[in-house]
């Protein structure tokens, strides 16, 4: 029985309003609904239906103080404002077709991104889709269909917003899969795994109990390119904020190392050390140089826990190449004065130090990201990695991969699991008939072929990095159709302008897109299917990433679906029906049955009956009564490396990576010893290079504060926040570019001016945000802004900085993306001139407070 409405006539529904993307969720929110209207979205209160005695929340005791979960979920503003996303002026309410795409005549691929859309019926859309799929399969074989099912979207379970088509395409005969690169992990994934294993992500594992370990044992926290007041919002909420205040209260010093005074630095830092974007490798090396020179590292530990230290030391001290990697050497490269480097090295060596990371960040997502990541692991090793208080602690993804070893906060007794009810595609599945790493899709299409190492899944182990692959795979077709959901390629991956050119390539005969909003890659589709949002569907959800209390809850729809929208799963069901595969696709299971299966296999069904769960609306999973005794981080390896070895070939910390030595000994971009690589065959993106004479500023591009990757960019209540958008003289809300007053003044740029951010890969317009929160020489622009083409593939007005990030991957043999730490020039834009040159683009209908919208791209309303 569902709970009846309250005295105000409002019914409360608990929903997972988070965006981590697969079946396990976060940000449990209470949605109050009345008469088919969403009244409000608020934090979930744990104790509305349970007592504290029943729930038994964890309590951390450290240094005479205590810390426990809040009584409510700590949701971010992104969840509270979600009504605005649901009712965005960019919502797609009906099926649409690009006006000049005619599968029986001219397809006009060159007009993708400029020609408009017309509303069509579901029937017509399904007819066109089924006919194209059958034709393409017959003409080229099923691997001609590129399945893009790995992008940034909402969190759903039964209605899986990611890759519902994958199962159908398997039944249809096959596909070519776009494989997500280990984005935001790339440095650790392609680099640190070769130092310390730590499969499958490459960031330290176990993470178990590290929040407690820090609270008890750590003296110094280094937040390295980490913003726990930003990046974690969409994944888990704001416990890290409370924790950071508590750590200050406990007297644990916090130093933040990043080009910007990011949102965590702004309120938590004891010290901010500004560093030029993507020069962190040089700083780590100089710190190691200090330690080697002064003997201020744990030599005994390295004798038993590390391999190849001598070769690394040779490089650091200059015995290999004649260049000592001293603080004086690193100062000009990093912008960090040598005396500060020396002081930092001394302090780190004298205190129990943990490095906090929050995925991505300016320290890790650039060209050659493997190097700073490996050096970070090595620095931790030199000071006794795994010793109480000395680890790499993640501020994000607590409980990732259904793995308790990824649980930095106090552990729950049970990790709930909803994968049995999930209809989308999971990235863990491998053994595809044909695949392309996401980062290489533009190259594959534009060039017609490519080859690479590894990346068969973002969760494969180190050994997979030595396997060679190619496109087209033997016996498989080139790509002629793209089927995408939750599309966000342009504004989130490497060189979006190349991907735009790929989507407009004549080889691509048909692009099918399903999405709730007309934005980014959806602007280039031939047929767009209207998808509804999380608040419009019946589902089952969980909150396992908050670090507070874990929840399981049935999710009733809050409102009826808008227009003719359906869920991703339902859309694929409709296509399956046209192809005669519906029964096979669904396995005969209805949506209510899938929800029930989710509950039954959730691992907590024995603790609460379905009826009681429906009546209460949510279940709070108790804390593991023995959580305090779970060994913290790598302490077992620290204490006994023979018995608890790492998963590297030697079982030790490999300062000289034996796997890389065996397979890529002469790789100048990722050799066995990690190095500072200012320039190489793949990239020329540092100051001091020839390119830097033309493009003298280094871009730092962080995960966005006011959205999750490509999402939330149309939420009016966020866009009016001063660091979210800059409203310029033409009334358009431009994406902010942080620029130091010194750099702005040198270019005649005032706060609020529209500026061109450009390099040889294109131009992005932005709003100048002149601030001391970014160091001179660097400019900051969050990724994820909605692409708003002035000239598709060349000029963007929306601020999608990823259109001009490097086109090459992390390095030749590591196909991660490089999306921060690259060169541009910035100048004041001439709006009049741009308007005169591109009148159509500048006259396109744009919502005054929400930005680019559906009225701007449709004919006759849709």
């Amino acid at each position, binding site marked *: 029985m569902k709970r009846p409405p309250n*005295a*105000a006539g409002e019914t409360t529904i608990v929903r997972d309003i988070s965006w981590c993307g697969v079946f396990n969720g976060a940000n449990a929110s209470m949605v109050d609904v009345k008469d088919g209207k969403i009244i*409000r979205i608020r934090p979930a209160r744990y104790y509305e239906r349970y007592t504290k005695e029943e729930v038994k929340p964890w309590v951390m005791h450290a240094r005479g103080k205590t810390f426990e979960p809040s009584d409510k979920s700590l949701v971010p*503003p992104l969840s509270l404002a979600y009504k605005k996303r649901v009712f965005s002026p960019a919502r797609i309410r009906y099926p649409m077709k690009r006006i000049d795409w005619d599968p029986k005549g001219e397809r006009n691929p060159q007009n993708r991104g400029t020609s408009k859309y017309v509303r069509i019926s579901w029937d017509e859309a399904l007819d066109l889709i089924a006919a194209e799929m059958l034709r393409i399969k017959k003409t080229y074989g099923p691997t001609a269909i590129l399945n893009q099912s790995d992008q940034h979207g909402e969190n759903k379970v039964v209605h899986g917003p990611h890759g519902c088509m994958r199962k159908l395409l398997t039944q249809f005969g096959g596909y070519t899969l776009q494989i997500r690169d280990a984005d935001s992990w790339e440095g650790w994934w392609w680099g640190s795994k070769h130092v310390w294993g730590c499969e499958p992500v490459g960031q330290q594992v176990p993470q178990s109990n590290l929040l407690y370990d820090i609270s008890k044992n750590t003296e110094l926290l280094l937040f390295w390119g980490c913003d726990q*007041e930003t990046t974690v*919002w969409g994944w888990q909420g704001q416990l890290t904020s409370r924790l950071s205040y508590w750590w200050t209260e406990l007297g644990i010093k916090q130093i933040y190392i990043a080009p910007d005074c990011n949102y965590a630095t702004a309120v938590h*830092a004891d010290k901010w050390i500004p560093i030029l974007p993507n020069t962190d490798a040089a700083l780590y090396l100089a710190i190691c140089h200090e330690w080697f020179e002064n003997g201020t590292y744990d030599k005994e530990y390295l004798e038993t826990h590390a391999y190849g230290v001598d070769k690394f030391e040779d490089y650091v001290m200059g015995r290999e190449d004649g260049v000592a990697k001293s603080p004086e050497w690193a100062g000009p490269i990093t912008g960090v004065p040598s005396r500060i480097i*020396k002081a930092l090295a001394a302090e780190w060596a004298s205190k129990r130090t943990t490095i906090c990371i929050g995925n991505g960040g300016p320290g890790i997502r650039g060209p050659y990201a493997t190097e700073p990541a490996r050096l970070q692991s090595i620095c931790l090793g030199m000071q006794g990695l795994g010793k109480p208080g000395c680890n790499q602690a993640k501020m994000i993804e607590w409980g990732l991969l259904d793995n308790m070893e990824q649980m930095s906060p106090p552990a729950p007794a049970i990790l709930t699991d909803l994968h049995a009810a999930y209809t989308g595609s999971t990235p863990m599945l491998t053994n595809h008939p044909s695949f392309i790493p996401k980062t290489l899709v533009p190259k594959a299409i534009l060039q017609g072929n490519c080859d690479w190492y590894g990346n068969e899944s973002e969760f494969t182990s180190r050994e997979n990095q030595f396997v060679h692959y190619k496109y087209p795979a033997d016996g498989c077709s080139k790509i002629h159709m793209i089927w995408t959901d939750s599309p966000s390629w342009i504004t989130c991956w490497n060189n979006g302008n190349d991907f735009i050119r790929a989507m407009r390539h004549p080889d691509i005969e048909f692009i099918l897109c399903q999405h709730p909003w007309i934005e980014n890659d959806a602007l280039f589709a031939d047929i767009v299917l209207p998808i509804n949002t999380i608040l419009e569907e019946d589902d089952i959800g969980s909150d396992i990433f908050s670090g507070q209390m874990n929840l399981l809850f049935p999710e009733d729809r809050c409102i009826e679906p808008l227009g003719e929208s359906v869920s991703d799963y339902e859309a694929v069901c409709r296509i399956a029906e046209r192809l005669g595969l519906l029964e096979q696709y669904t396995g005969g299971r209805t949506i209510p049955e899938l929800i029930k299966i989710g509950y039954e296999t959730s691992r907590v069904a024995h603790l609460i009956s379905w009826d009681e769960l429906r009546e209460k609306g949510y279940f709070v999973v108790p804390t593991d009564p023995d959580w305090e005794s779970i060994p913290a981080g790598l302490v077992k390896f620290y204490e006994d490396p023979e018995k608890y070895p790492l998963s590297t070939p030697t079982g030790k910390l490999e300062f000289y990576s034996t796997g890389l030595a065996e397979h890529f000994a002469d790789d100048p971009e990722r050799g066995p010893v990690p190095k500072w690589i200012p320039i190489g065959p793949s990239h020329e993106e540092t100051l001091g290079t020839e390119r830097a004479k033309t493009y003298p500023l280094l871009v730092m591009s962080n995960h966005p504060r006011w959205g999750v990757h490509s999402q939330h960019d149309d939420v009016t209540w966020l866009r009016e926040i001063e660091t979210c958008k800059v409203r310029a003289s033409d009334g358009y809300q431009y994406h902010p570019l942080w620029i130091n007053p010194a750099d702005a003044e040198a270019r005649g740029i005032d706060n609020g001016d529209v500026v061109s951010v450009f390099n040889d890969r294109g131009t992005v317009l932005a709003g100048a945000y002149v601030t*001391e*929160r970014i160091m001179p020489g660097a400019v900051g622009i969050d990724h994820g802004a909605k692409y708003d083409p002035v000239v598709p593939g060349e000029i963007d007005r929306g601020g999608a900085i990823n259109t001009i990030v490097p086109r090459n991957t992390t390095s030749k043999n590591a196909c991660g993306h490089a999306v921060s730490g690259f060169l541009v020039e910035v100048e004041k834009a001439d709006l009049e001139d741009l308007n005169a040159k591109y009148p159509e683009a500048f006259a396109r209908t744009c919502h005054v407070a929400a930005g680019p919208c559906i009225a701007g791209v449709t004919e006759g309303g849709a």
Partner: protein
Amino acid sequence: MGKVMIIDLSICNGCHNCQVACKDEHVANDWSPIAKPQPDTGQFWTKVINLELGTVPKVQVTYHHSICQHCEDAPCLEACPQKAIYRRTDGVVIIDPGRCRGNQLCLEACPYENVIYFNDDLNIAQKCTFCAHLLDQGWSETRCSDACPTGAFTFGDEDDPKIKEKIAVSELLKPELPTRPRVYYLNLPKKWIAGAVYDKEADECTEGATVTATNAATGEKVTTTTDNYGDFWLKNLSDGAYTILIEKPGYLTQKLGPIDATSKDQNLGDIVVWKA
């Protein structure tokens, strides 16, 4: 049993949950007779103000908050000829949307910034209601305090001993006014002077130097010691101009200033000291 709000700026992380939750509650929801809907954008019945302080690398952000102070002696209430503004028994000051005729005298009368807004479409003045419609339903929080993740907002009854304790150590926004607000602040921003001392010849941060700031007008002294990066922060300064003295045995004493910390916080940058 009057309601009060206490806002602690030292634990505001700037997430804007308060500002957004207020919009979620009041935009497109009609809570008459307490409040008519707020326009989608442009009004902030509780507003976060981003104060970026200092220069690279001594930069901090303080998030200040504007919200109706629900004054006991409310100038807006007196200024309204329509008598559209009233005080409830719980102290909450309400602009009755049914009586307001849009003469905007309350906007002029309010001595605080970013409190009363004018809604052109509805021709009424609007502002924070302490979510009185929710209090009347039995809520113990306002939407902004409910949404705050860090506890920077405390809402409650002025007679509650825990609230009284907090009020006792709090400050008022404009203490010189006779308005007797129901909103209290903890840790309102005070000015600071910071810098970094180093020995250029040794290329070394100078630790343990004594830094003294003397207020030129009052003679008030504030002292601190440089840390292992040579950094010093002289915090909680009263407005005024200061002379700075940097002393360390074995080094020549450095004198700087006067530095004016009246209008903004001051980063003096890198300061070289020379061996004596």
